[in-house]
């Protein structure tokens, strides 16, 4: 089996001139090479944040700085793993994951001894578990960031003015399947070889052990390399250069049609060029929202799962800010989805007919991890304007599971515009409860 591969770490497009390829001009082969090259480099633009948890506007950490001897439990158990984030998403082709954290020194843990809770020592570990699936196989990767522990009494935070800023630590760890130096392995995890060629999917979990004081913990995509078995099709890059070798010599001084119908990889086919450009246009897009109900200020130290956001409302109610005037309010808080304007599609947001250049929509898939206990039925709907909504996601199981729905949301024209996404929930009957722990909003591949 033959493979083609290109390293895309730090790749960046340079937008070559297209004039020589336009009508009436004598195009040269170097213009063709430049177009192929840009397709490969485009994959290097990804730095999507796919998971985030931390202090995030809460002034108070879950882990306190109080006396570690107490009547009731005030610190987490040393051995308990406390899940603070779950997410699912599709990986950008050629990208792997990097976990990165900023923290202040970790706090204490407790154990129960002789009728009271006492210190069990300071500890702070942030654990990441990612299950990669490519339609043929799956691989689970576990990584850990170990946090420095506070040397103060009770492993407390230093309490002088601004002390947090002098005690900010950062660290990272790569989350990747094993043996990526093997080109076949790299090909297996760069992209999927199975229809509908949607990409490698990931289920990600972040958990804390001990007295972690997380300021900002994220997982984001980093471009690594893109590799394909040359007998496959529907690539996300043309792979014009292979693994750092010199660029291919184009067989003609002028652009010619190369149907690429012969077996094997030539990397120079105009057919492949168009197919790849189409795939990049259809499948690449932002990850707009990644959210967990974990709140440092209110999450109990004994719980091993995120305390869910709940509603028992019989009418649509915004779940994070229940004071929001339903169904949507420009004044109320929400998530910004203006980056959706970077990934518009011609059939719903072309600037001449569909939206006339005044506005834009982005097609998305929304994932929610939710449950409706005790025979309840709950519904979720998302609005980015009163007129722009998607849903309804029906939650009807008492066991937490992933639910998803697709739709189009108004996203504005870019960062200088405004597009605020709000999440509404309701239940079907009196006495029912809808519980939500996690939300991911990702671009919907075509």
């Amino acid at each position, binding site marked *: 089996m033959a493979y083609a591969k290109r390293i895309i770490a730090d790749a*960046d497009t340079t937008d070559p001139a*297209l004039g020589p390829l336009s*009508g009436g001009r004598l195009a040269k082969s170097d213009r063709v090479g430049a*177009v192929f090259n840009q397709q490969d480099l485009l994959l290097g*633009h990804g*730095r*999507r*944040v796919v998971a985030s948890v931390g*202090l*995030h*506007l*809460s*002034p*108070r950490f879950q882990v306190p700085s109080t006396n570690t001897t107490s009547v009731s439990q005030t610190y987490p158990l040393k051995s308990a793993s406390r899940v603070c984030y779950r997410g699912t998403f599709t990986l*950008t082709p050629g990208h792997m994951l990097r976990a990165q954290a*900023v923290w202040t020194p970790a706090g204490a843990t407790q154990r129960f001894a002789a009728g009271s809770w006492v210190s069990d020592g300071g500890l702070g570990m942030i654990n990441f578990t990612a299950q990669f699936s490519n339609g043929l196989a799956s691989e689970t990767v576990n990584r850990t960031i170990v946090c*420095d522990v506070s040397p103060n009494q009770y492993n407390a*935070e230093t309490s*002088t003015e*601004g*002390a*947090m*800023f002098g005690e900010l630590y950062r660290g990272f760890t790569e989350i990747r399947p094993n043996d990526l130096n093997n080109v076949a392995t790299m090909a297996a995890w760069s992209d999927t070889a199975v229809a509908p060629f949607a990409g490698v999917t990931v289920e990600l979990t972040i958990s804390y052990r001990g007295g972690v004081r997380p*300021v*900002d913990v994220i997982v984001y995509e*980093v471009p690594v390399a893109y590799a394909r078995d040359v007998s496959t099709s529907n690539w996300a890059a043309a792979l014009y250069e292979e693994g750092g070798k010199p660029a291919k010599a184009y067989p003609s001084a002028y*652009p010619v*049609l190369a149907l690429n*119908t012969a077996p094997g990889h030539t990397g120079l086919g*105009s*057919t492949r060029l168009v197919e790849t*450009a*189409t795939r*990049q246009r259809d499948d690449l897009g*932002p990850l*707009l*929202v*990644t*959210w967990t109900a974990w*709140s440092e*200020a*209110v999450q109990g130290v004994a719980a091993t799962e995120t305390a869910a956001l709940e509603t028992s409302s019989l009418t649509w109610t915004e779940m994070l*800010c229940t004071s929001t005037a339903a169904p949507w309010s420009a004044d109320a*808080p929400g*998530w*910004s989805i*203006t980056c959706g*304007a*970077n990934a518009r599609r011609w059939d*719903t947001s072309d600037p001449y007919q569909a939206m006339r250049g*005044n506005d834009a929509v982005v097609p998305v898939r929304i994932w929610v991890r939710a449950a409706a206990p005790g025979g309840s039925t709950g519904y979720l709907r998302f609005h980015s*304007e009163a*007129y*722009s*909504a998607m849903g*309804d996601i029906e939650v009807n199981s008492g066991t937490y599971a992933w639910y998803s729905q697709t*739709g*189009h949301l108004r996203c504005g024209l870019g*960062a*200088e515009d405004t597009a605020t996404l709000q999440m509404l929930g309701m239940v079907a009957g009196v006495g029912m409860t809808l519980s939500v722990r996690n939300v991911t909003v990702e671009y919907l591949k075509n």
Partner: protein
Amino acid sequence: MTALNANSKSDTAFLGDARGGGGAAVLTVDLSSHRLDLTNNATYLQELASARTALSTPREITAYFEADDNDAGILINHGNALGTAYTYRVFIKAGAVEVYENGVLLASLDLPNVSPVDRAYALQWSTRMDGSISAQSELTICDVTGGEYAHAFFRHTPASTSAAYAFNVCGYGAGVSAFPIAKVLAVRIGRRFHSSAEFKEDWIAATTPPTIGATLRDPPLPLTADVEQSTEAAFAGPAYLWSGYNTRQSDRRLVSPVANLRIIDAALSAGILDNTFATPRQRYMRAWHDSRYRFAGQTIVYRPISPKTNKVRARVSVRAASVGANPPVDMQFTLYSIAGFPFAGEAKKPKPVYYYTTPVSVNVNTGLVAVEGEWIDLGETRIAVDDWGCSLFVLAMAFDLDSGSADADDTRVILQALTIDPFYEVSDNGYAGGFDLSLP
């Protein structure tokens, strides 16, 4: 000559628009590119054997009409003369809209604010494939006068259709069960999915976009791989030109938000800030540009920066109030982007590079409890990128520029949300911008 209509689009199969008056005589005139008028039968409009409206999925059906809570009748139908078989049917039934395909009721949605008096409504039923088997429909209704919207979403099997079916505006066949045609002001049938945002642009009110300084990309048109003549080694052009253009337009597709922070209701009480900055003290540090401001440590995010961005725009959602007799004082906010932050446990580095948004001074008096709060636009700033390809962002704030007045002492604020969105803006002649982070 028929005037052009902005709602006649390339996918429009039929468009009749009598919102300017003229009733059925005007409604029957087809404003689409087909220019095939319907037959005006006084109480209904019809096209027999309407292949152009024999649409299953994707499809758009829009109607603009007046209705009261007693009106009933079929508004739009594509089916046989007996009404026993049809592709789609839109039925108004005493204050509600029912939509059907192939004899099956798919959804029912009440007309917002319907009353005994006629109100103007616009509805759009838009359908697309979701996966390879099922269709996903969105039904959107707008009370044009009151501005309220109602939505329904439903999944179903794509409809079967027949080019032999007739297309009716009002009723089926010879106008059986017709909705009063005098109340129908516009109808459009389209061949592609239309989002509810497009519905609002076309039929309710056009959006006035803000001034955009960022480099925007257009979504490129589709092109099939066989665009060229299929002769190996023949001269080629469009494939290379289009692909090169497409790559340029796609180069920012992966750019995602830098930060999207929200706090839940239950955590709001823990997040009340005042000018003592003591909740707790270690969380706040004097800002670098002006010691009257304090960095708020709970707003710190440390995020990677895409190569195709060089600026961010930030907004913060707050609640504010006074616990004293007088209103709250003005508050000042600015967002920093920092490279080279002196993280603990690392070798000493040169001084950090930082940029910050032009500080904004606002007076917010929303109350603290059971309110929505207010968004504050922090503006934009360049991004300072460090050796990890990341930037540390933090909000700095002040109460009346640290005046220490009694009213400042009484002011309370809660930070509810913080959004940071990246973009690319071509720098100016170099005096302020210097080297761009990346090429345009």
